[in-house]
């Protein structure tokens, strides 16, 4: 079963600011000077923050409204209008729905809480940056403080007029902006400032990912079975379902689900249908029954959508033919651990809790016979065979993964629209990114996600849900890419890449950026520029998280440099990352980044050592230190000079050859000098011979001419 504790009990969140730690936070205040937030100024007292241009957040005044396991709330004031605001500090690992922020902001509806300002601030409490949403505080009290056990017994006409109609109007606006609320429940509906229920206001929905803080009773069965972080984005019919449960809770005179656990409620929903489960036979007068039957349909295809509801409101009841349908029920129950089970979906729930029993049912063919004879679902029968075959093909029966994989796949076949349930995880494919982000919180074990992606569990799930509302082929392609990512261990890939690939809202979770809220490559450079001045910073300004983050945000930019960055040669790593950083700086038209430039200069030694010539090294070092300032682009231009490198290499080879030749020459001379008597003997003999021959020739000619001169009578 999914862990529902998060919905009711506040989570100990290391990354969220804790009001009790204010004193400690103030002690660490000097650090705030070097960590200015991107859009907020910190008051010297450390208790008041400026958000945007005209919102003050009072960090010494925490409030409970909107507070949940993942977010902290503080009082705030709009300096422009003087109105009170609620500042919601969002979680780092379960970030707000950034992609829907502008959509939400643009909705100006009197029955929806109004978003006044948003941005990143530096909390003085823990010296960390947070994304903050500032809502108008005109909410009044919530309908109820606690959703569980809610049974107000209000009149159906009041529920219709004051609750249903305004919320349907809000949902229409949200539909126009392609928004899903995800947190419609009595405790998130406020009474407003007027007495009674005349102007209710629907509360916050974008401070956390969809469904994360929604109690499972307000979720359709397929979403309720998922862990809070693994429900996925949700659609408007899910909002209508939540609205239906909310209306039912308000109408019913007593809590018929009292004492039941979440699992028991879900099983009851499967067996009896949500309508019967939630109302428990309560006699609801008026026409709301029809609405409730429509929106509380357990088959998503049969569930009323907004058009159906609008038509019903308009009185066109005759056009709506959808009737409640119940889940597939077996003619004969099957026994698992002594319990009689008549629904495959319930068998999946029980089987996941008792995998040995489910495996035994499969091994003794009881499961197959039950499906064949009592359910008569040939598709399910084939699915079971396929699950068995595919599991055996992927892992041996002796493998530790065998049972988890087998049971998970059987559950997928028995209840196809339920989320992927693998060991203690229950995640919808569309919610995998959010769940993975949460798993990274506090260094939890994320290896099970690696196992799920590597073993194609999501792809098997998708093949069982080919008729789903979303594009199954696109999702298969997404998870096939994820499988490739986790199969590659080099930085830039792995599970980190899946995290950013599947979760577009999550900020970069790199330990290097501890405390900084980085959502874009530009923000990354700005954060690194500030971190550079810290004494205890990392040696290199990048790690697996940063590379994976950039690969997702700027794939084309980084992919070409990834070979360099992942190279064993340290100069190539520096070269590659500088190329990426400089291109980001250039493309974003950012100003100078002296801190980051200095950081890069500190790790530039391998780049200098790329040149053999010591003079070139020194020249490059001097040029980088003196001429670049904070421009990474200039730095990269100086080091990106292949001609110089090639010439240097060529000249080094020549020098190497020269040195060896000189060595040989010197060796000859030195060997000669070992026996100095022999030096120059040959040359000496030659010189002497030549000299003597010349003298001799001269003498001979002299003798001959003198002699012949004395004997001229002979005719000479």
């Amino acid at each position: 079963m999914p862990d529902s504790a998060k919905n009711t009990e506040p989570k100990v969140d290391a990354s969220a600011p804790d009001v009790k730690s204010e004193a400690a936070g103030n002690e660490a205040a000097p650090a705030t000077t070097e960590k200015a937030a991107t859009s907020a100024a910190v008051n010297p007292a450390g208790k008041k923050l400026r958000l945007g241009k005209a919102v003050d957040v009072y960090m010494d005044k925490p409030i409970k409204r909107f507070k949940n396991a993942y977010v902290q709330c503080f009082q705030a004031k709009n300096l422009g209008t003087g109105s009170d605001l609620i500042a919601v500090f969002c979680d780092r690992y379960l970030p707000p729905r950034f992609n829907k922020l502008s959509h939400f902001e643009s909705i100006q509806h009197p029955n929806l809480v109004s978003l006044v300002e948003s941005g990143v601030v530096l909390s003085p409490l823990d010296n960390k940056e947070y994304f903050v949403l500032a809502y108008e505080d005109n909410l009044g009290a919530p309908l109820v403080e606690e959703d569980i056990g809610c049974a107000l017994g209000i009149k159906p006409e009041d529920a219709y007029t004051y609750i249903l109609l305004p919320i349907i109007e809000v949902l229409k606006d949200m539909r126009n902006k392609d928004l899903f609320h995800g947190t419609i429940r009595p405790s998130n509906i406020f009474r407003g400032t007027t007495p009674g229920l005349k102007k209710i206001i629907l509360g916050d929905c974008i401070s956390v990912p969809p469904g994360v803080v929604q109690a499972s009773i307000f979720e359709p069965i397929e979403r309720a079975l998922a862990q809070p972080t693994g429900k996925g984005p949700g659609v408007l019919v899910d909002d209508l379902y939540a609205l239906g449960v909310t209306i039912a809770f308000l109408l019913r005179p007593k809590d018929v689900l009292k004492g039941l656990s979440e699992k028991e409620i879900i099983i009851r929903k499967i067996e009896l249908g949500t309508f019967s489960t939630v109302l428990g036979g309560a006699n609801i007068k008026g026409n709301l029954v029809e609405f409730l039957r429509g929106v509380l349909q357990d088959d998503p295809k049969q569930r009323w959508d907004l058009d159906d509801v609008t038509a019903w409101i308009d009185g066109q009841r005759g056009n709506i033919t959808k009737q409640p349908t119940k889940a597939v029920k077996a003619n004969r129950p099957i026994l698992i651990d002594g319990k009689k089970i008549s629904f495959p979906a319930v068998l999946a729930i029980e089987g996941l809790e008792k995998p040995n029993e489910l495996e035994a049912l499969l091994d003794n063919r009881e499961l197959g016979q039950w499906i064949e004879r009592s359910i008569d679902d040939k598709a399910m029968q084939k699915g079971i065979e396929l699950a068995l075959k595919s599991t055996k093909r992927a892992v041996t029966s002796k493998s530790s993964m065998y049972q988890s994989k087998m049971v998970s796949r059987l559950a997928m076949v028995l209840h196809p629209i339920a989320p992927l349930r693998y060991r203690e995880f229950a995640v919808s494919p569309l919610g995998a990114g959010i769940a993975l982000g949460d798993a990274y919180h506090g260094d939890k074990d994320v290896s099970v996600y690696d196992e799920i992606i590597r073993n194609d569990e999501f792809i098997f799930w998708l093949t069982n849900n080919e008729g789903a509302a979303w594009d199954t082929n696109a999702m298969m392609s997404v998870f096939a890419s994820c499988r490739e990512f986790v199969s590659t261990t080099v930085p830039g890939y792995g599970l980190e890449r899946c995290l950013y690939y599947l979760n577009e809202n999550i900020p970069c979770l790199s330990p290097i950026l501890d405390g900084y809220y980085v959502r874009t490559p530009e923000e990354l450079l700005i954060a690194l520029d500030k971190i550079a001045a810290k004494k205890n910073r990392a040696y290199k300004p990048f790690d697996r998280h940063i590379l994976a983050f950039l690969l997702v945000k700027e794939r084309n930019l980084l992919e070409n440099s990834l070979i360099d960055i992942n190279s064993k040669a340290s100069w190539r790593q520096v070269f590659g990352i500088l190329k990426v950083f400089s291109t980001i700086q250039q493309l974003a038209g950012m100003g100078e980044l002296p801190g980051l430039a200095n950081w890069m200069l500190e790790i530039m030694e391998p780049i200098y050592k790329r040149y053999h010539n010591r003079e070139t090294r020194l020249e490059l070092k001097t040029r980088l230190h003196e001429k670049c300032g904070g421009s990474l682009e200039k730095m990269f231009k100086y080091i990106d000079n292949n001609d110089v490198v090639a010439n240097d290499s060529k000249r080094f080879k020549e020098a190497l050859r020269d040195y060896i030749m000189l060595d040989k020459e010197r060796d000859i001379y030195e060997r000669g000098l070992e026996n100095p008597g022999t030096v120059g003997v040959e040359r000496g003999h030659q010189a002497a011979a030549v000299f003597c021959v010349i003298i001799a020739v001269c003498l001979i000619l002299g003798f001959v001419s003198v002699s012949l001169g004395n004997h001229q009578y002979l005719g000479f």
Partner: protein
Amino acid sequence: MAKKVKKVAVPKAGRKKKKSKLALQFIFIIIVFIIMSLLFLPTTFVVFFGMMPTWALFSMDGSKNKLKTVAVGAMNLAGCTYVLTDLWVTSHTLPYAISLLLKPSSMIAIYLMAMAGFVLQRVILGIVSSMMLQQARAKIKIILRRQDELKAKWGPEVTGTIPLDMDGFPLKDVPDQPAVASTPAA
């Protein structure tokens, strides 16, 4: 293979032919020399006995190409020429040749010239050896300086004594050392 053998065999035969040609030429020269020696017997007599120091040195000379003999021989021959001119001008007869050789002045002239050749050879050899020794020492100094310059410019890896990778960089980091000129071996 057969072609190869044929190819190798052809130059061998050529070399043999060349050798036999040279041998014939040598025999021919010897015969001509003997005939000439007999025809000019007085001259032969004077040269043979006058050049005795050269023949003696020739038998003991261990220098390359018998250069010592060449030096002394040239001077010795100049001394002989002093006697030979007298022989050729006065009477080219064997008795006169004998009488000339028996004259002390002739022998002194011949042997003094041979000795002068020997002394010249020794002096020139000493001068040249000394010059070359100095030159070698200077050359070693220049080489060492040039090698130090190369080391300073390209680092210790230029010496070729450090294991290098394919790009010419040391496999292990080697710190640059200040260039120190080594003294040449004495």
